[in-house]
């Protein structure tokens, strides 16, 4: 499974980028993965939002992607909290 992630406050991102993920990883784990991968400041807090044609939905960082309803190929936005 993978998801498409965009860091909304980072100008390297003009669109979403592909990230490998697992349905049973938590939102927090995914966030930590991309913070490490893209060198985002570690001392800040972030929100993860699932983008969907029917509207955006906040991802609960403590629950798994699967529990959050995040599917293979879904786009996600990272915002600074």
């Amino acid at each position, binding site marked *: 499974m*993978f998801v*498409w992630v965009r860091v909304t406050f980072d*100008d*390297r*991102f*003009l*669109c*979403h*980028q*592909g*990230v*490998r993920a697992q349905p049973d990883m938590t939102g927090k784990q995914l966030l930590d993965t991309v913070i490490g*991968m*893209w060198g985002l400041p570690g001392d800040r807090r972030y929100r993860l939002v699932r*983008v*969907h*044609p*029917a509207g955006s939905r906040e991802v609960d960082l403590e629950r798994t992607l699967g529990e959050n309803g995040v*599917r*293979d*190929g*879904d*786009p996600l936005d990272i915002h600074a909290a």
Partner: protein
Amino acid sequence: MAKLTAGTRYKALTRDLMWDPKDVDFKKIYPLVEAEGIRIKDPKRWEDPFRMTFNQYVKIQAEKEHLHHAIRSAFEANHGHARIVDSRWFEGVKAFAVAIQPAEYSAHRLMAYIGRNIPIEAIRFATFNQALDELRHAQIEIKHYAHMSKYYDGLHAYAKTNENLWFNTVPKSFFDDALTAGPFEALIAISFSFEYVFTNILFLPFAASAAAVGDEHFASVGKSVQSDEARHMALGMAALKMLLEEDDRNIPIVQRWLDKWYWRCYRIFSVIATLVDYYPRVRAISWKRAFEMYVEDQVLNGLFKDLFKYGIRPPRNFEDTIKEKEHYSHATMRILDHYKHANYFRGFRLQPDDYEWLSREYPNTFERYYAPFFRKMDDHVMAVAAPGLPAVCAVCQIPCEFPNPDRPEQMWTQYVEYNGKTHMFCSPGCRDIFLEEPEKYIQWWWPAESYLSGEFGPTLEDMFEYFGFTPEEANEHYSSRDYHRWIRYREELGLDKTFQVV
């Protein structure tokens, strides 16, 4: 003995050669003729405007070949590649090479498919001539790249890049879309939408740019190809009118195809916009002006007014293409620079004269929305590199990085839920195409998805093996080995010497 008039003679040579089969079913010979809902009553009255017989064809074409290859030989023998004004032009030529050349080849196979499956002999002879023309274009283009490839990076792996590289999926998926459509749709897609509406803007500005920078061979490629296109455009127009006049029930079907293929063509020409506005250091014309001339004036204000009497309206979302003209080349160049580390042709650091020209030609948009991005490369050419593999549009396959022309600080990206999945599109134009045929577009080969799923192996090196080129062939032009070689080559020939006259 009777000498016939040219028209009667042409008809006699090209019509009435097929007969109504007696021992097999007509539909077994033409299994696709009814598949698309097109109704043909009396196709015999349809006229091929060009009236080219076998003898005329081979004589005219051999003459063109002779002229073109003479120019090519001179270019090759006399270090033509070293004599242009700036070698970064060749990065654009590479883009054109590996994107357009395979498209010409696909068009060759496609025209044979159309000619075989549409039981109208006048169309068949015209499409078959075109099938040969397209092979010609593929070959005169590849001959140029075969020579260039001995001196420059990026071209030697064209088979693999065409099969596996993200950038090539843009033109490839376009022609694959036509190849997998029914024969009438394919005819409207290529002969009308591609040839009639857009070929001028494909070959004329680019050939003019080639001449402006001193690439004489490429200018000849462009002009020689374009000389065949006049025939193809005439075929496209005649084919369209024939379908519209044969039966009223064809009109909504044709409208649907025009809606789809206008936008589809427009989107693949985004790269052409950069070849006009960015890669040549001496510009012949801007994309904006070329678009106004060839598309707005000739097509939207001219052609579609004529088609109004058939009940045909301008293609869906055409207003968006007009709105985008001030953004198109910049947004596309930004994409190319964003992913230049994984492409077989390079981006480049803009020079002061570039900023000046772009600001002057695009006073409303360039400085405000795009120049800051390009200036970041001044300190480090990789400063603007994308951090990963992009989400691309599920129709045109270009990364979803086109700004909304009404609010240029935001992207135009559209999302659609279909079959349990979220699909992304670069624009409403591409989204609307998907919504008409979702079952087709979910079949697309998505390079990023393929790379992430491990189709080519787990590492970046594995991926490059399937691309066929090395990371050194990518990135930025003025810091590349191609540029340094070109400079040394010119020094050796003494091309940069200036001579004083006292």
